[in-house]
């Protein structure tokens, strides 16, 4: 499973999200590759799941190029919110495979 954390520049903001996503995945016992990237590169990147802010999620969806599931995280410091977003996205991808 490939997870991509996306922000505007692919520098600081997506990195914060990535650090917390990696910590939460570890807690959950889920193995996944996590990367971070800027929104303009994310359109062409291979990923199963994209995590980002609402605004950037909307622009990725409007772009139409992205095939990955997109999940929105509002508070990048809130591990419970990140965990909930990951759990529901994982459930969705398992349902699609089944």
């Amino acid at each position, binding site marked *: 499973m490939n997870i991509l954390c996306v922000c505007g*520049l692919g520098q*600081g903001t997506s990195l914060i999200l990535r650090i917390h996503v990696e910590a939460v995945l570890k807690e959950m016992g889920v193995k996944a590759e996590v990367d971070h990237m800027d929104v303009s590169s994310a359109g062409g990147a291979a990923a199963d799941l994209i995590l980002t802010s609402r605004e950037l999620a909307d622009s990725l969806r409007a772009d139409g190029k992205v095939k990955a599931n997109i999940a929105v995280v509002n508070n990048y410091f809130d591990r419970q919110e990140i965990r909930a977003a990951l759990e529901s996205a994982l459930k969705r991808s398992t349902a699609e495979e089944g």
Partner: protein
Amino acid sequence: MIRFLERPMIVLQSAAGEAEEAIRESGRLLERAGAVRPSYTEAMVEAYLRLGPYFVVAPHIALPHARPEDGVVQAAVSLVQLREPVRFGHAANDPVRLVFGIAAASSPQHIELVRRLSALLADETRQKQLMEVKDVESVHRWIREGSAP
């Protein structure tokens, strides 16, 4: 070495009334410390105008930044605590009370800065404390308390 919230890089009770002004103030603090060139501050403002307020990463907390090549001399973090909450246009996390200007010269430095900041802003109680401090001594005490093992 990382210049992390040193005394001249902190402004409390800023009168900035707009997002652009608050971002610029956080950049000026980095400039004054010699951590970035003026081009970096302008790049932070430009990123906000072009890409939106996605760097408002949690309720009331903004981390404006640009790319290392936009003019970083040395890794640093500045703080602008706003007297009045300011709207940045973020659907979930407005209005902003704390603006951390972030400058990193490389990716590993960015990781280091972000880890330190995330640890300090660990929970809402800690965040609220910083929104309400009145003097720089209290900011530094807040940092020490948050860094304790």
